[in-house]
């Protein structure tokens, strides 16, 4: 059984999916990131608030979000090294 993702991994997955699929609809984003509608919306609201993604039904990653994606990779590696 695969291990439960932490929130940093989920944020990384959402941003990466949006980067790879710029025209993705929310329903497909939900399937690709393996999140429920409620959880995905919770994360997206947070990311919209931080100006990392934009849009409603068709969500896109912002330039700030792309920059942050690189940052998230570093953060993941850092927390991974501590086993967290």
């Amino acid at each position, binding site marked *: 059984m695969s291990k439960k993702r932490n929130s*940093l991994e989920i*944020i990384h997955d959402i941003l990466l999916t949006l980067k790879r699929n710029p025209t993705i609809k929310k329903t497909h984003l939900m399937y690709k990131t393996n999140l429920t509608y409620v959880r995905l919306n919770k994360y997206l609201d947070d990311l919209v608030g931080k100006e990392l993604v934009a849009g409603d039904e068709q969500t896109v990653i912002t330039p700030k979000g792309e920059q942050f994606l690189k940052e998230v990779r570093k953060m993941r590696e850092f927390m991974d090294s*501590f086993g967290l």
Partner: protein
Amino acid sequence: MAPGLLLSNINSAVEVMLFLLTFTMGAYVFRIHKFTKNRNHKLLAIAFILIGLSFMTKAGLNFAVNNGFLFGNFSLITIIYVAFMLFGYTVLDKLFLNIRTYRVFSIQIILFVLALFLVQLSSLWFFDLVSFLLLSFPVLYFFENYKKKRTRSSLLVLLGFAGVMMSHASFFLIFVNKSLFFVDNLIRLVAYAILLVHYVFINK
């Protein structure tokens, strides 16, 4: 400047550098926590900041003693230094032993208070013993983590924290030979340098 005073000032400068390193790492983990809202990330940040504060207090203590503001070794600042450091290690244990029940955590708090009490009575010996024991749990966790992941960064974290733990162990040897005081400082410096290298590698 007398050699003893020079050495003490160098020691203070090192403590300030260690404060900057641990505080920077704590701030970085806090930044991660801002996005993740993860309890574990918050605890790691708190632990780093507490350890950083203890170094800052120690540097202040050295400076105050060198300049004649304070006399003796067991001043209030020593107690604050020990308290910050032990509390930082206790938070690390709470995190890596995944302690969620306050009944278990309270045992650690009792140990922490006992260490503070004994530091006032005797010397820093009990502080080092408790520090060594408290750090052994995170080090074992990092060892397991390294065995699982086999990455350079997990190895650096393991070596860094194992070094910090060993620097506390080497304090016991001071009873055998006073000159070993330098060994523990050297081990600690190398250990934190490894953590700095780890931080730089990740953020380069």
